[in-house]
């Protein structure tokens, strides 16, 4: 049953990684604007027809 020590250690480390990932997302401002991307994704990338570029 001592494998439980190992398993719990793994699960806690895994959860910590997710927590750190969330902190990183929060710090870099990924959660600051949750609405605009939902509109942006519906817009087509312009079918670049202009010749000079």
């Amino acid at each position, binding site marked *: 049953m001592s494998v439980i020590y190992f398993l*719990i250690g793994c699960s806690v480390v895994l959860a910590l990684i997710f927590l750190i990932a969330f902190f990183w997302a929060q710090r870099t401002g990924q959660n600051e604007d949750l*609405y605009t991307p939902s509109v*942006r994704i519906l817009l087509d990338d312009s079918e670049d027809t202009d010749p000079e570029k």
Partner: protein
Amino acid sequence: MTGSPTIEKISCYHCGDDCLTETYILDDKHFCCHGCKSVYQLLSESQLCNYYTYNDHPGATRARIDRRFDYLSEPSIISQLIDYTDQHVTMVTFYIPHIHCSSCLWLLEKLNKINPAVHYCRVDFLKKQLNIRFDHHRLNLQQLVELLYDIGYEPLISLQDVIKEQNAATKDHLIQKIAVAGFCFGNVMLLSFPEYFGISAYEQSFRHFFGWLNVLFSLPVVFYSGREYFISAWQNLRRKSLNIDFPLALGIAVLFVRTVFEVITHTGAGFADTLCGLVFFLLVGKFVQKKTYHHISFERDYRSFFPVAVNTIVDDKEKPIPLSDLHTGHRILIRNNEIIPADAILLKGHALVDFSFVTGEAVPINKTWGEIIYAGGRQTGEAIELEVVKPVSQSYLTQLWNNEAFNRKQDNRMQTFNQKVSKYFTIVLLVIAIASLLFWLPTNINRGIAAFTAVLIVACPCALALSTPFTMSAALSIFDRNLFYLKNTAVVEQMAAIDTIVMDKTGTITTSDNDHVQLNAQLSEIDRELVYNVCMHSNHPLSRMICRYLGGRKRLPVTDLTEAAGRGITASVNGYEVRVGSEQHVAGYSRDTSAGTKVHVSVDGNYRGYFAFAHQYRDGLKNISSLEQDYKLYLLSGDQDHERFELIRFFKTTDNLFFNQSPQDKLDFIGKLQQQGAKVMMIGDGLNDAGALKQSDLGIAVTDNVNNFSPGSDAIMDGRSFGRLPAFLQFSKDTVRIIHASFLISLTYNFIGLSYAVTGKLSPLFAAILMPVSTVTIISFTSLATHFAAKKRHLS
């Protein structure tokens, strides 16, 4: 209306306004004005016509705007506006009120195609902000703003930088704290289950291992997530007041200490899961309470209404200077549609000043040479030159802000129910805890301490602390859906306590748009042309309004025009003799005695009828009069009293109608009512109401567009939902009742828990079940009850 036009209405391809003429056509597309047409031209040259495919008429109307951005080349102003700059790039954030649809988003993020000097642009849709990074060697700030203006997205640049204030706020890491608490809560629950289901004798080593892990997980919960509660409780203790944070902090501390103690001494499993759950739910409640409206600011004052800079004339040359540097004696130049920022004497030009925002009077006022013009007016017509006689901060209008009402520190002007109750709650809680300690102490010390801590744990007012935030946030979202935006949750309780309502007239109970010209005449198309041409030649404000009403028409030769001041105009157009003016002037008699401003019309001696300029009352003003049973109603108006008799329809007596009120009068009036013990709600709209809004117990600003300027207030109401005010007031009372009821529910849970706790035999499992159950009950009760109450008041 009679003689309605049969011509098919064509709307502008860019902005959707009606096209009055057929002059502006490009690529078979109609435009209402040259401005809209040139935007289309610019976009089509840059291959950006997709703008028009995402939405119909996405543009802002470009008619009648004439702004200049010369001041944006002043280094002192630039440095105030930009976020960051180095040798190569500059970053700036603009607030652009017109952002409203996906086309806006698409176009604004394609600025680079119009001007390659723009490296990066990102729109924040809800905040209506545009973040731009650009090469300032190839494009300066002024050119950038002009580019935005050219495509119809004029940024709102004001002295009071609302954007930066908002972005600077909310740095309390609440989300992170919730994340930590949630993470620990989940893990601790998992580790506590074996204990609850029983651990066999030969697995005792697991018990200690789990216990120590639980203590480890509690550490960040107590010292990181829950720190705020200790700080707040301590600060309140020093101020000798007991708020709800004190029993909460006490509960958290006791839970933690007892858990650590039990784990160390191997006497029990501790209460780690209750502890983590408590902090987690409390923080979620805090988060729910903090609703922010990104696009609305409740803290605006005259600085966001006034321009950033003004053009001064030095040695016959124009020089833009920041408004803060404007002093007495400066000569300033004000162009059409610009705001006069300080009290000044008119030196040159013909001033026709629109004071609608200051006094509420909609008709522009003529000013002649040598007259003092008060700050806040908007010049219409030609450019004028003025000499400043008072600094900006001491003008007639802005000195209102020197009043003590604006320096008063105030978050909640009334004690909330929560604050009132938590004081007594804490005292009773401590009495019970100490009593149970003293009861067991002579016989069994351990049991006494167990009972003491158990009482503090089980009676920890988690449900009480959550009932207010959850009820209020549900109420706020209902108000929000009905176009009524509250500054914070405490405002709901303030609204429930109101017993006196004071209203401003113009702009508040009347609509502020200029289209309140009513035609009560049989006018053929030819007659309309005739009247239009006569009025074209007059500078009288009413003539201008008639011209605007009739729209752009063919010019006809006008001869023999005579204008009698205060009476009317006589002229012959195309051989017709046209008279426009007072009834006496037009018809030769004066029979009409009804109120309101009217302009009568006759053609060739045949009386045709009149234009009426009555104020348009807001829809639902009738509903307001039903409030008279429960509330005292007052009306304060900056206007003359010529509408007194029309208003009787809505107010039963004229005793509570006050006219000719200056901004200071309004503020004093509210103060006087408050001294008599009234809880006053002020409803206003303009800068002239700002003092009264601030002085009142609850200030509501009414506006037709929530993104436009509205003075500092506790709540902002969209003019369309004005008629729902009685329902709002009722609903706020319902909300307070719901809070009371949920308080009773949480007390019941506390009693059940206490009856176990005083015996000193509180099992961790019992606490772990009671706490979440009471929390869930409260949350579901409050949300359901609030929505039910909203339905009852017909608020969707």
